[in-house]
């Protein structure tokens, strides 16, 4: 059997070791529940209880669509107190002799911002009336200068909030995929060493085929989990379009962009999984090893790329989108937020693919020795010697 077929066989085995339909369905259900909770909470926030303010001698106009309602208040203070006591109104508003407004309440008035806006509108109308200015005249006076920005390439529009949100979510998913893989590679490989499965397998297949299979299988599992979350996310977005008027950025309906995101995600997983697998093979016992903390180092370049959100076309973002350790998250974010050139994308992809291949080869060499090493963890110098040893 060829090493490639062996690697695919191992990949299938590793995938099936971890993939459980029950877990995936549970993940989707959790997503749905969270979505429904979010939807319900927003309904409560926007369509909550109506607040009634009773006013005396004030022509207050509540904002249209708001939750505040204005009703006339009884003239006598006993009647006003009775209204407050029964809870029929949430506040009694009146204007003092010095012109200031006074609000009498029984509990903390959460509707204060809405009330302030209504009072400001009232005062503006009163002042305009006193100055003899009509609403139309005021609109002309206050109108800002008109400025339109036209891009030669319509795709170079400034990113809106939706794009930024999507870019941040993408980065989060990449980090999640990488660290999901890391967790399973760490537990899987150190577990195999502790179960003494290693020698049985290395007697059958070459270490490179074994590690390739692991990278593929566990990477596929991580991608499936993320895909499942994305399905949940899409369902949530569809729900969002109805509930909140959320608009899915059109960047996501461009197949080339989607392909690019998938390519970067796969290459990132391949690169980091190779490093994780090699490193895990050198850990003798994960319960006592101090080495496991080093596994979190990839977090650093990934988190650094959050800076791209602020300035996707700045020098730092352009450099990060080329360097293979940061490009898997930096370049896709730039693609979502801006419009990097094709040459930049091609160079970034080529560098990332080369780095993933190099990681895979070096990892194979470390894995070959590390998996058969018991009772002692190799030093970094020893690992470097294995990686650079000629003639393998």
């Amino acid at each position, binding site marked *: 059997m060829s090493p490639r077929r062996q690697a695919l066989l*191992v990949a299938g085995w590793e995938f099936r070791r971890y993939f459980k339909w029950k877990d995936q369905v549970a993940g989707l259900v959790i997503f749905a529940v969270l979505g429904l909770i979010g939807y319900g909470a927003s309904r409560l926030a926007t369509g909550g209880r109506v607040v009634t303010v009773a006013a005396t001698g004030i022509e207050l106009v509540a904002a249209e669509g708001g939750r505040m309602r204005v009703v006339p208040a009884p003239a006598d203070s006993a009647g006003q107190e009775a209204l407050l006591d029964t809870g029929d109104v949430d506040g009694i508003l009146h204007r003092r002799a010095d012109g200031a407004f006074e609000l009498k309440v029984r509990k903390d008035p959460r509707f204060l911002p809405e009330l302030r806006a209504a009072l400001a509108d009232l005062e503006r109308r009163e002042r305009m009336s006193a100055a003899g200015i009509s609403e139309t005249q005021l609109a002309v006076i206050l109108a800002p200068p008109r400025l339109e920005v036209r891009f030669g390439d319509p795709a170079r529009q400034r990113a809106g909030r939706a794009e930024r949100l999507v870019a941040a979510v993408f980065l989060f998913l990449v980090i999640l995929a990488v660290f999901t893989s890391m967790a399973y590679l760490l537990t899987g490989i150190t577990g195999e060493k502790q*179960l003494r499965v290693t*020698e*049985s397998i290395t007697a059958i297949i070459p270490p490179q085929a074994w590690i390739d299979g692991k990278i593929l299988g566990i990477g596929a599992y991580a991608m499936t989990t993320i895909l499942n979350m994305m399905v949940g996310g899409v369902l949530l977005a569809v729900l969002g379009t109805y509930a909140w008027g959320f608009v899915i950025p059109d960047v996501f309906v461009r197949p080339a962009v989607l392909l690019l995101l998938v390519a970067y995600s796969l290459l990132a997983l391949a690169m980091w999984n190779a490093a994780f697998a090699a490193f895990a093979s050198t850990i003798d016992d994960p319960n006592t090893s101090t080495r496991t903390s080093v596994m979190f180092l990839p977090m650093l370049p990934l988190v650094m790329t959050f800076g791209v959100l602020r300035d996707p076309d700045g020098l730092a973002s352009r450099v990060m989108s080329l360097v293979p350790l940061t490009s898997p998250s930096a370049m896709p974010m730039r693609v979502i937020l801006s419009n990097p050139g094709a040459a930049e994308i091609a160079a970034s992809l080529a560098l990332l693919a080369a780095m993933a291949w190099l990681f895979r080869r070096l990892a194979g060499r470390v894995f070959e020795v590390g998996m058969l090493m018991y009772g002692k963890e190799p030093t970094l110098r020893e690992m470097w010697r294995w990686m650079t040893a000629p003639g393998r």
Partner: protein
Amino acid sequence: MLPLVRVDRIAKTFAGRRAVDDLSFQVLPGEVFSLLGPNGAGKSTTVRMLIGVIRPDEGEIAVSLDGKVSGVLPAARSAYLPEDRGLYREIPVLRTLVYFGRLRGLEKDEATRRALAWLERVDLLDRKDERVDALSKGNQQRVQLIAAIIHRPLLAILDEPFAGLDPLSQEFFLDLVRELRRDGTTIVLCAHQMDLVERVADRVLLMNRGREILSGSVPELHATIDARPHIRFNLDEGASGSAFTDDPDVDSVSAGEGAGEVSVRLRPGSAVSGFLARAVGRVPVRSISTEPPRLHDVFVRAVREDDARRGDFAS
């Protein structure tokens, strides 16, 4: 007969320590060849070089299969049961066996068919869907062995197959080794249980500190056994075996493992009946037994002599 495996002056050093040193041997087709030796003798290192997990620093290994000679055992034609062995605990038995069969090159259907046949043979068919860790240690060892030989190898290397097994399971493994040989599989058996090995091995090679110290067929080695009569006494409480030392037929007297036990070795050509008649008259005896000559003694003596010789050289 052309050897299936020819090992020529191989050596391996780990961190300055010579684990295997100038070792040569041949394995003939269809035989059970046993590598024996105490712990740390270099047996497992030798086996790992045979299967290609590690490479010798010096020397050469040649495997002749189907008219071709190569430096490593092809995985599809050989089997290896490592000393450090284990299985994926959380995976069902049948799935585990099919996976190992497929890694060895079998198609899924064929691997399944053979796995089921083997499970029936070892009385585990009704447990095929259970997780491996639900089985007893002995049954896990059976599954482990099936995983190693499911593809019907030409050559099987079994490293310490009897380790940690109860006597019944040991007998099961001995039967299995015989069955494999009958079906034409050549077997390299590494072990330190000499009594079990001599029941199945055709030829043995004894290693100590990485080197060969003794080799030959089992009958040849039996011929070297000390043929002096060996008698074991269980004496009454308070009695001493020192009275035996004055007897003219006694060569040596040593204390046994239990309280009141004494081992007596007679001079060559001594009459056992005459000695026994004198012995029971001198010392109150509860029971008497004789021990047949064992290969175990040959090996213990050979290893001790080798240790002493090397100790002398070292000093």
